């Protein structure tokens, strides 16, 4: 469903992505590994369409993602380094707006997602007052609520304790079981069944 073809990308003078290619089918997860600066974030952003590659293309369901950008984005959930939350709003309010802009969502759904990611206790405090790990749990609830087929996760376990890391592995496995796709940049591997995982190592 997702095909990355011979992607070349320069950031300034640095040739960051050198001909990256892979195919990902439904129910599979691509794990991007590599040292800092190898281009994991760049690749994720290029797949998401935030960066334009100099050469190569990204195909989603057989169509170039650039051509069907808005439709592609409705099927995509991107979790970057920043949890993308407004500090002056509560977690619940943040989700109401960020998810509501994508699709109509009701309070019960938000509650369910927050419960799943263990964020319900602090969902009504202003995000400013939360720890980094708590913010990430709210952001993960947002990913669940997006109803997206493809998840692009940039180091999803950052700032999370052992419970949190297990949570990420669980919801990732659940997503794959629902025939979803994941492309994740990770430092340590995610505990997923090996036959569902495609390992992609990026060289700096």
């Amino acid at each position, binding site marked *: 469903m997702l095909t990355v073809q011979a992607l070349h990308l320069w*950031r*300034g*003078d640095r040739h960051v992505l050198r001909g990256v290619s892979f195919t990902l089918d439904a129910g599979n997860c691509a794990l991007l590994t590599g040292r800092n600066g190898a281009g994991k974030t760049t690749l994720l952003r290029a797949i998401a369409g935030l960066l*334009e590659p100099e050469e190569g293309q990204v195909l989603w369901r057989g169509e170039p993602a650039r051509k069907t950008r808005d439709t592609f984005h409705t099927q995509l959930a991107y979790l970057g380094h920043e949890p993308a939350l407004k500090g002056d709003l509560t977690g619940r309010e943040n989700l109401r707006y960020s998810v509501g802009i994508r699709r109509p969502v009701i309070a019960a759904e938000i509650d369910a997602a927050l419960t799943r990611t263990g964020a319900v206790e602090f969902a009504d405090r202003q995000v400013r007052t939360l720890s980094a790990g708590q913010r990430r749990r709210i952001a993960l609830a947002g990913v669940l609520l997006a109803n997206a087929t493809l998840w692009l996760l940039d180091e999803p376990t950052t700032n999370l304790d052992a419970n949190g890391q297990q949570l990420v592995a669980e919801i990732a496995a659940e997503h794959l079981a629902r025939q979803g796709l994941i492309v994740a940049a990770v430092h340590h591997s995610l505990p997923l069944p090996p036959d569902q995982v495609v390992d992609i190592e990026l060289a700096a």
Partner: protein
Amino acid sequence: MSWVWFHRFGSPPWVYGFARRWAPWFGGVAAIAMLVGLYGGLVLAPPDYQQKDAYRIVYVHAPSALLSLMIYTTMAIAAAVGLIWRIKVAHAAAAACAPIGAWFTVATLGTGMLWGKPMWGTYWAWDPRLTSELVLLFLYFGYMGLRAAIEDPQKADKASAVLAIVGVVNVPIIKYSVTWWNSLHQPPTRLIGEADMAGNMVWPLITMFGAFGLYFAAVFLVRLRAELLRRERNASWIREVLT
């Protein structure tokens, strides 16, 4: 078949070679044309019955003004081509245009001020044409400032392209400001056909238009070469060219 020659313009080595070959020619012909035009305008053309000899500044002022507008338009078109079709050479061309255009705008404003004193009694007036020409200068500065402030070269190219395109709306405002509003600046002067200017005053002016245009072409090609060298410094074709 017709697309083949067009594609060359997108190839940095070809454009570099073209610029290196042709810049001296443009420069040489420009110099000759300027000498001829200046001689015709400053020596041969008769004094104006109203302004006497003060009008002669038109031979520098009018071509500068035309170039300031033409270069901005060229810059905006090159930037648009670079943005839409993602052609690196187009972005390099836009970057090369900007400082030249800015200087011509300064020249326009400067010569205009020198002319304004004898003609209107003041160096400056806030009338539509002068104000919008000043705005053009700010647009050039903004363009160059934006380029300088963005670290990533591709981002700088694209962001300044958007600015150039947005600012192009100012060009028709400058051109038509003297017909749309009551302006202190004189309305357009017809040069051919039912001319408002005497024949022996017109040909040096047209020659100067051509000379300035050729001069721009020469300087532009030199700057373009420098831009290409800077952008492509890690490319293999550069090493071949420099040996």
